[in-house]
């Protein structure tokens, strides 16, 4: 019998009422227990980066009467003034940038919708490791890294509309659903997600750029699809050399001819399989690897129409090995590439017979495995 500590007895009598628990040591798996005392209210609003002047020009056309261009703003460079007071212009460290004011009520609405709909995979504080997000590859997005794969913008950060289109379309082949919530709710969630970016980074950083989705230029190959596909195949294996990460859909010999390499050059082993690449998307602090898709096998996350493919190739996939090709190769070639990839998907995806004939043929004749 341990010594009776009178002080223990006195406190014990106090403990007679229902004790709320003391927090135990953080065990290794944060999801071993059910979450408790989840905060549902955001106390103060936040200024979040807004896209550049051209985006405002479009918005001015879309919502007449709200935005007026004031030439004297931004130290003489001219800027847009929002009559609703939501967007405003400010100068920090000599950098003029547009900011969007997300009020505390709106962030609270966003927080509550986020906790209800998104926190199961993206975590209760948006760190991408929710209870349902465990063991998932590719990992659910962490909103503290300010990197988004499929928003089809060349700038670091997507605009509200780009994020909204990703959420509404969902990412096929992953647990990310096409959420059919109302736009009001989705935009509130997006404001809350933006407010999750850590200090001086992402939407809270004056130096980051917020861009709109890439504008889909006019497709030059609309009536000459076959030539587009042939051209696409040349660029795919030639100038862009996509076969370094993606599978090469040619035999060794054909590749050598396309790339005009000298006789007998050998290419990477497993040419007809994708090569595993690093990515910046972390789970519990460890960067995970990402598999570039095999267009005849894997499901395209960001849509399979020619325009979608054009935008995805042009903007690149941030945080992964897929660079931004806009500017590196001409729009016409980008469209050709898009047609070529679309043709691969249409003719071989989910058609086991056609695919095994095509890929089998490559592997047998080509000397690489």
């Amino acid at each position, binding site marked *: 019998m341990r010594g009776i500590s009178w002080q223990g007895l006195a406190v014990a009598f106090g403990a007679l009422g229902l004790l709320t628990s*003391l927090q135990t040591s953080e065990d290794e798996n944060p999801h071993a227990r059910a979450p408790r005392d989840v905060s549902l209210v955001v106390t103060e609003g936040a200024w979040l980066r807004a896209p550049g002047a051209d985006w405002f020009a479009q918005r001015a056309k879309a919502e007449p009467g709200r935005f007026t261009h004031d030439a004297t703003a931004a130290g003489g460079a001219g800027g847009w003034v929002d009559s609703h007071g939501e967007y405003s212009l400010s100068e920090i460290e000599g950098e003029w940038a547009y900011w969007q004011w997300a009020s505390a009520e709106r962030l609270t609405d966003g927080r509550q919708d986020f906790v209800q709909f998104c926190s199961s995979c993206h975590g209760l504080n948006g760190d991408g490791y929710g209870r349902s997000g465990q063991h998932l590859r590719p990992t659910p997005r962490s909103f503290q890294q300010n990197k988004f794969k499929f928003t089809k913008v060349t700038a670091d950060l997507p605009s509200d509309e780009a994020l909204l289109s990703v959420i509404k379309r969902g990412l096929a082949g992953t647990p990310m659903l096409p959420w059919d919530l109302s736009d009001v709710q989705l935009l509130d969630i997006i404001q809350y997600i933006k407010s999750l970016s850590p200090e001086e980074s992402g939407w809270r950083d004056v130096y980051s750029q917020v861009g709109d989705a890439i504008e889909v230029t006019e497709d030059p190959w609309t009536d000459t699809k076959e030539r587009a596909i042939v051209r696409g195949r040349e660029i795919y294996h030639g100038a862009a050399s996509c076969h370094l990460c993606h599978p090469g859909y040619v035999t060794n010999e054909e590749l050598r001819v396309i790339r005009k390499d000298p006789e007998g050059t050998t290419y990477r082993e497993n040419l007809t399989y994708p090569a595993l690449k690093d990515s910046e998307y972390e789970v519990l602090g460890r960067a995970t690897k990402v598999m570039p898709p095999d267009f005849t096998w894997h499901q395209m996350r960001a849509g399979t129409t020619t325009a979608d493919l054009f935008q995805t190739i042009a903007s690149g996939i941030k945080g992964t090995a897929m660079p931004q090709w806009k500017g590196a190769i001409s729009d016409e070639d980008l469209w050709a590439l898009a047609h070529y990839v679309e043709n691969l998907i249409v003719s071989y995806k989910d058609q086991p017979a056609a695919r095994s004939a095509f890929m089998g043929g490559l592997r047998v004749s080509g000397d690489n495995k």
Partner: protein
Amino acid sequence: MNTTGVIELHGDGPVNQAPPETGRDRVNATLGMILFIGSWTMAFGTLFLSFLVLRDKIAVWPPAGIALPSAPIAGLATLVLAASSVFVERGSRSLSLDAGSGRKASFSALWITGMLLGLGFALLQAWLWYDLILAGRTQTSGLYESLFFGLTWVHAAHVVVGLFLLVWALVGSKLGRYGPERRSFVSNAALFWHFVGIVWLFLFLGFFVF
């Protein structure tokens, strides 16, 4: 089955002084209390069923390697509670003996001892919790603690209600509302206190003995 055929209405005036209990009223009150105890037995039976079902999920019972509530204190608590039930029962019985007001004095003495013992049990129970919390084991740290804290909290709530009824009966008897001729409330309070004691017995056996 009330046997009297025709009953004259009492005058319509307000009836201030509660009429003395008839034998039938006591039977009605006791039947009501028995039904309540039956229903609450189903409630604690469900809790105990869950306890048994969840016990199997823990390989070793009681689980080794973690701080456990100390059995001796629990044993002492059981004895204290049993003693308290005995005193409360003798107090309640002392009312029903056909004796004069002398009996009332012994009722209060017995009843108060029973209450103090009940209070002692409550303290020991709190001490059990406090030991565990000091060792850092709260109800969030695992299934054993969930079971222990969960079930003992629910039981403790009923101990508090039981103590409140005992106090109510004592005050009522002091005010003259309850006495030898109106003792159904006192016997019901005693009945409930015994029920709380039996539930603790099951808890004690489940956690500390088997």
